[in-house]
């Protein structure tokens, strides 16, 4: 039994529809303070909608959401092309009224930590995809909210850059613990980064299985415990897709191509 006072996010019986499409049906979940909670599920299972609800960008049709202040990191980096990397990272500080010099100073401290030292003045188009994502993450982190909602943050990166990104995310979170709700279509990413993985099914979206991940950090994607958990999650995913796919391997591959 979880202690309710330690929850950073509590969602109960959420219903949400777009027109006649039911995106979420009776979804409930809890995320403890400081926990990294991953949501995996097929395209269109309402993962993005759920993050928008948690971060207060939309209101549910029914149900209750209690959450500490949350900030959303969208799938696309959405860096402002007219601002240098450091000003993009410091955007939330500027919006909160911090003077430019001070905002830059605070962002600067984190640039080194994420391997971005020397790129403070670079314009977004001069950065690689992986670097842009790092700047976008810094922007999210510097918003200073206790809860981070990450919507497939590495979905658009190639495999090598993604592995690198997962490593820096893990490191940053070890140093600066936050409550994280991570939406991903990559089951391996979920078990690698999360304390708990929730598997969702689609149309309407709801959680069908929760897997605690108790492996010590840092984790390796090849360690047997992690591989076993990944398989369990994939089986749950395949079940969630009505078992209509050609086994979970095929289901997983369809996943990886899909996005949400």
């Amino acid at each position, binding site marked *: 039994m979880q202690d309710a006072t330690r929850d950073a996010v509590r969602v109960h019986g959420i219903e949400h529809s777009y027109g006649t499409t039911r995106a979420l049906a009776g979804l409930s979940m809890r995320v403890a303070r400081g926990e990294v909670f991953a949501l995996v599920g097929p395209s269109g299972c309402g993962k993005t909608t759920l993050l928008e609800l948690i*971060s207060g*960008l939309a209101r549910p049709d029914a149900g209750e959401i209690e959450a500490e202040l949350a900030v*959303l990191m969208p799938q696309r980096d959405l860096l402002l092309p007219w601002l240098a990397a450091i000003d993009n990272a410091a955007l*939330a500080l500027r*919006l909160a009224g911090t003077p430019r010099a001070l905002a830059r100073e605070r962002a600067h401290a984190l640039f080194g930590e994420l391997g971005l030292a020397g790129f403070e003045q670079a314009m977004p*188009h001069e950065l690689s995809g992986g670097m842009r994502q790092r700047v976008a993450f810094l*922007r999210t982190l510097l*918003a200073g909210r206790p809860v981070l909602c990450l919507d497939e943050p590495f979905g658009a990166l190639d495999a090598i850059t993604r592995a690198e990104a997962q490593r820096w995310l893990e490191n940053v979170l070890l140093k600066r613990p936050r409550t994280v709700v991570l939406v991903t279509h990559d089951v391996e990413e979920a078990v690698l980064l999360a304390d708990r993985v929730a598997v969702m099914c689609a149309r309407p979206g709801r959680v069908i299985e929760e897997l605690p991940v108790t492996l010590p950090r840092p984790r390796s994607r090849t360690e047997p415990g992690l591989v076993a958990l990944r398989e369990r999650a994939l089986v749950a995913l395949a079940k969630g897709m009505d078992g209509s796919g050609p086994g979970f391997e095929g289901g997983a591959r369809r996943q990886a191509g899909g996005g949400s």
Partner: protein
Amino acid sequence: MSALRRVLPPLVLVLVLLLAWELYADTRSGYAVLLPPVHEIAAALASNASLIASDLATTARVVALGLGVALVLGVASAVAIHFSRLARDAAYPLLVGSQAIPVAVLAPLLVFWWGFGVLPKLFVIVLICFFPIVVTTVDALAAVDADQLKLMRTLGASRWQAFRFAEWPAALPGALSGARIAVAVAVIGAVIAEISTPGTSSGLGHEIQLDLSFATAQATARAWAATSVLFAFALACFYAFGLAQRRLAPWTARARGAYV
């Protein structure tokens, strides 16, 4: 090398056209009242240089003033229309319809109201320039990525901050494109204003009208000389705005490899 490659094609094209003009006009006797050969136009330009220069100064002044007023009013209206559905619904039909008002109908009334000074001409230019500026700016503001605005919201931006940090810079290139279109029509607008406003005593449009009324070969050559100056002036204005666009919104010029 690249500068030469840019300048050479239009230069060659203009020279070829001028050569064709010269040959065509020079071989037809009795045509001079209608279409003087190029060398006679050049001679007229040289011998009337100071007259045409002072006409240009008059026209350039009213174009600059009109364009400035149209820019301020146009951008302000576009922002109002962007923020207020009511403003859009109320003003748009009027805006479009205003483009169909023949200046010749309006000009005597304006002179009756405001006298023979610069004001009636200014009004005509503003009327003509206003439309392209408003339409391009409104469209540019509306084209801002919805995800970008969602991001601004999650980072804690107020409506005004979202405008200042995201929408306005994103719309600036569009507004400047409108200004470039406006600059070209402003020149012809000034000529129309000078021709149709009673009591006009200087300006390139006035000069052309006067010369054509003489119906002599010499006067026609002078009218064409004034026209060639108008041509060059419009071109210079257009490129000046292109340069301003690159200065004010460098990120677009780079992204598109824009020509001007």
